[in-house]
């Protein structure tokens, strides 16, 4: 599944989201629940703002010394008998994984959630080679079985589906015959997946954070499937995007604390797994063969720019969970595997502006995302920065808008002209004014008055009142 998902244009995707009352209901209740839990669990830590600052500091430091830490990580993995591959592009990353699969004569691969492999379309690449790839996170598994329905949330990929829909998917595709009770469905999937774990030749996981000092990768999960993916198959491949790294275990502790609380409102998740290379001679389980694929895919172009802090992201979806726009349009409207505010920032950076020029505008700039981000990415500011590039550099803004803004610029910097125009507003708008409101405004006002009334411009502006008052004071 590529970075960009869904074929339709932005407005069509938005309308589809707005029309989906069910999805909006589930998103609303998920946001409610996650926000409340996050509030409680972050308060427990004490000074949450101090923790955020620490998180930001760690991410900034790591990114500013990324070459150092990547080299350290790579050396440590190699010392432990693992293989490291740096992939400049998605294609290079896919080619490497395909090569490993060929060398192992693999037939079946089990995976645990990894956004970067979705960004790379790794599954498609492997399936082209005739391999069977099975997603093992419950949410991802549901989507895969449902003809590769795209994820709609960073942490809860199948948030847009309800139990009844999920039951139907399994009934149709997997001959599931039980109820739509969550326990029944989960038990069924567990049975299905158990066989897959035992049969698989290769396990592929993502990586929440790699620890540079020891060459370990860590996985933060709630289902336990990542442990099976890493423990059972003979060959283990972890794919990480190049920025997902911390210097030492001490920073890992901080980042995991921030991640679990921000993502699901838990102090810790059920499983926090760390792996360091292939299994040693005395160890009884773990892979015999370990590969770490470190993917750039456009990220080094972001380093050193005004968007560098977007790479702080730890994929907790805290921004998604507070975003009112996301709540109404849902994840699919963003047309990217990275949705919500961080998706609107990240997608144009990784995929260019041409196909994503609407995303930075899908925000009222309320800054709830910026406030929620545990690593202090100034998301709303970055959305404005994107808009500036779209209008002033890429020239992708509409002509009428450009002219309107030009007129605005002229008007606001010529006070006489401005005063004259604003004085006329009341008279000019009078044909559309009924009582004191305008319900059917002309031209550019239409988008506003389609849904709301506009108050009629006052016949006496504040400045007229003030001037008159001043005059009468002098007269006295």
């Amino acid at each position: 599944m590529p970075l960009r998902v869904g074929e339709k244009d932005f407005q069509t995707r938005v309308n589809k989201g707005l029309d989906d009352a069910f999805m909006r209901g589930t998103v609303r209740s998920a946001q409610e629940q996650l926000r409340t839990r996050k509030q409680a669990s972050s308060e427990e830590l004490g000074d949450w703002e101090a923790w955020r600052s620490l998180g930001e500091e760690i991410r900034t430091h790591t990114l500013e010394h990324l070459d150092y830490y990547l080299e350290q990580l790579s050396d440590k993995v190699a010392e432990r008998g693992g293989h490291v591959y740096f992939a400049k592009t998605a294609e290079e990353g896919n080619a490497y994984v395909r090569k490993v699969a060929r060398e192992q004569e693999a037939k079946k691969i089990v995976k645990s959630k990894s956004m970067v492999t979705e960004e790379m379309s790794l599954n498609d690449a492997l399936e082209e080679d005739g391999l069977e790839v099975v997603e093992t996170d419950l949410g991802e598994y549901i989507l895969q079985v449902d003809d590769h329905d795209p994820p709609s949330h960073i942490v809860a990929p199948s948030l847009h589906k309800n139990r009844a829909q999920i039951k139907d998917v399994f009934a149709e595709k997997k001959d599931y015959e039980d109820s739509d009770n969550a326990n029944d469905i989960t038990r069924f999937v567990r049975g299905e997946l158990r066989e897959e774990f035992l049969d698989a030749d290769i396990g592929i996981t993502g990586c929440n954070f790699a620890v540079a000092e020891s060459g370990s990768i860590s996985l933060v999960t709630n289902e336990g499937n990542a442990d099976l993916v890493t423990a059972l198959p003979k060959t283990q491949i972890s794919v990480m995007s190049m920025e997902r790294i911390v210097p030492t275990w001490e920073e890992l502790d901080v980042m995991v604390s921030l991640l679990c609380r921000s993502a699901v409102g838990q102090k810790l998740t059920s499983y926090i797994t760390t792996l360091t290379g292939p299994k040693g001679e005395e160890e009884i389980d773990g892979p015999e063969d370990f590969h770490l694929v470190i993917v750039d895919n456009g990220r080094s172009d972001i380093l050193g720019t005004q968007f560098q802090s977007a790479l702080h992201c730890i994929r907790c979806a805290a921004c998604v969970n507070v975003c009112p726009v996301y709540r109404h349009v849902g994840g699919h409207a963003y047309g990217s595997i990275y949705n919500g505010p961080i998706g609107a920032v990240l997608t144009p950076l990784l995929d260019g502006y041409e196909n994503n020029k609407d995303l930075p505008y899908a925000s009222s700039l309320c800054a709830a995302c910026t406030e929620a981000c545990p690593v202090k990415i100034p998301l709303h500011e970055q959305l404005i920065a994107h808009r500036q590039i779209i209008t002033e550099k890429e020239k992708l803004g509409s002509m009428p808008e450009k002219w309107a803004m030009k007129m605005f610029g002229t008007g606001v910097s010529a006070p006489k002209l401005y005063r004259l125009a604003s004085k006329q507003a009341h008279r000019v708008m009078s044909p559309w004014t009924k009582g004191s409101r305008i319900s059917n405004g002309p031209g550019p006002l239409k988008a506003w008055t389609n849904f709301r009334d506009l108050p009629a411009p006052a016949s006496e502006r504040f400045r007229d009142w003030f001037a008159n008052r001043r005059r009468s004071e002098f007269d006295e």
Partner: protein
Amino acid sequence: MKVSLFITCLGDMFYPNAGKATVELLEKFDCTVDFPEQQTCCGQPAFNSGYHSDARKAAKQTIEAFKDAAYVVTPSGSCAAMLHEYSHLLKDEPQWQQEADALSAKSYELTQFLVDVLQVENTGASFHAKATYHTSCHMSRLLQVTRAPQTLLGNVNGLEMVDLSHKHDCCGFGGTFAVKMPEISKEMVDEKVNCIQATEADILIGADAGCLMNIGGRMSREETPVKVMHIAEVLNHTEER
């Protein structure tokens, strides 16, 4: 104390009563108020839409207009927050940036000025009504002003304040967002209106003309019987009982 008013474009044209109340309030607390005629708009529509060269024109005009001001007070949290953006907007022109910093240092949103500078916590207002307060995003998140309006409203004689659920969620205005993404904006304002109705308040109070225009406009369209008032009008309200 000498105070220069920045009434903002929406305030000047659409909500002159909020401006009048602002003047009367400040005068009540011994401020000498002036209104520099050269002021236009803070530039936010262009800034937020990405037209920064046009926004810079507005910024420079505003800086010029308030060059001689001791304090700049504005009855809008959002426009006050925009004044603090100028430094960033003009970062490539050091001379202007310096002026921007000077403006930012002397600029206040009205309630912030009353509480933090004039040390007023009770404006002596009296208003017998049930009301709820809309926390505007830019005022609370960008300007970080949350306590001042609550304190002042809490001290209005006779005013029963009811908490608005989901108060931290945006009303869907977002300046040009409301016209660029009208369908999404409409859903957001509908949700806000539902929360307002659930409070059973008679009055919605806000400190930003933009939000009031959006929420008020939707309530007017839907014939929702809740009156919209600017916080300055409430804090300046007196009545005989």
